[in-house]
């Protein structure tokens, strides 16, 4: 279980570059500042790309959890 209170969860498993970033951007559009999104991905590129994406879009990376090749990335909307 995660330590973050999640407002939305995005299942981006099976998608590859650049779609996890695209889907995250679209998902955050409907959210309020300060809300937290959990993004699930099994794409090794997105594990590196999503934190970079968050930084360059003014959102905050809260943490990354990895279990059984599934990466959960927690972002707070900035």
């Amino acid at each position, binding site marked *: 279980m995660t330590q973050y209170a999640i407002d939305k969860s995005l299942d981006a498993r*099976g*998608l*590859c*570059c*650049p*779609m996890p*970033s*695209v889907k*995250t*951007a*679209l998902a*955050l*559009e409907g*959210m309020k500042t300060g809300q937290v999104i959990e993004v699930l991905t099994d794409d090794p590129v997105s594990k590196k790309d999503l934190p970079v*994406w968050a930084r*360059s*879009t*003014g*959102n905050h990376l809260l943490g990354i959890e990895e279990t059984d090749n599934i990466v959960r990335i927690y972002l707070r*909307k*900035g």
Partner: protein
Amino acid sequence: MSGNVSKKEPVTIVLFSGELDKAIAAFVVATAAASMDMPVSIFFTFWGLNVIKKDGGLIKGRNWMQKMLNVMNRGHARRLAISKMNMMGMGPAMLKTMMSQKCVPSLPEFIKTAHALGVKFYPCEMSMSVMGLGKADFVDECEDVIGAVTYLSIAKGSNVNLFI
């Protein structure tokens, strides 16, 4: 898309090539940039116009040379060759299968996604007039038809400029 980033960093792409692989590369960069809240403009010129041609209407153009060119160069996102190992259409068919196995969107899906993210498509006026094509020959997602000067006026204010 989101965030409080005050300074926008625009991206401009000239898509000169009409091959599937190069078009996919352009749209991967375009959609990734759009997801990063960067305003993206793609200038489709010469063979690149094939990527945004509407399906149907085999004979286009005003004179026999334009008509012949457009018959041999039909275009449309689903009908593009690849730049290497085309093998009379076997290459693109195999590539499309391999990409869908990896959940890579198809080119028509990329075009829709890019448009939904606010990517601007500009067909090149001069190439269109050489080939005898009109705005109606292109997908509805296209913005105005523009010339080189207008393209450069957008490109000079951008941070990333690619020629593909």
